[in-house]
């Protein structure tokens, strides 16, 4: 029994990632997709918050969405795993529930 949380909006524009991190449980996974992939990059004003969250929950980011936006998968915050759509499907299968934070 665990949840895959997905977030799709930039933390600079919306509060949804913050809300997600405030509710995810220790065994849960959080996947950043679409415009949320910006949150995964090191060196941003949000990076420290995400690194903190990564201490207790598993963090993932969708590679194709990073690349589309010209963001280098090699530069994501330590502890975030870059996956593709296959990995997204695996995460959705491995967790019992998917919670999309919109």
């Amino acid at each position, binding site marked *: 029994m665990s949840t895959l949380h*997905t977030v799709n909006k930039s933390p600079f524009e919306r509060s949804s990632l913050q809300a997600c991190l405030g509710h995810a449980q220790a065994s849960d996974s959080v996947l950043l997709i*679409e415009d949320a992939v910006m949150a995964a990059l090191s060196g941003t004003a949000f990076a420290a918050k995400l690194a903190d969250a990564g201490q207790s929950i598993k963090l993932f980011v969708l590679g194709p969405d990073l690349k589309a936006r010209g963001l280098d998968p090699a530069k994501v915050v330590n502890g975030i795993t870059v996956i593709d*759509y296959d990995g997204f499907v695996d995460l959705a*299968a491995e967790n019992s529930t998917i919670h999309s934070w919109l």
Partner: protein
Amino acid sequence: MKFGILVNEGPYNHQASDSAYRFAKAAIDKGHEIYRVFFYYDGVLNATKHSEPPSDDRNVIKNWQKLAEDHKVDLVVCVAAGFRRGIVEDSLAPGFRISGLGQLIEAGIQADRMVTFGD
């Protein structure tokens, strides 16, 4: 494993429909089943038969239609949300069907996993 998918936004303006399509395709390619794709809120706009995007871009509606054709995926458009937004039998693209919201709840019950894509 059986996946249900909920699409909340229309084509082009938001990436949600593209993301849902890529997820569905990847799931099928990995041997999973898509129990149903349900289109709600502005998501119903994915079922318009009138869309003609520029030739140098993807065709969101055709992508869904091909998925339905190739893999018998059930594409269901909410009747009430469609009426509000002008998606009715007259404007419906082949491959989609119009039905009630109960089809979404039923997908939530019958599918092993329900995944939502929205704004």
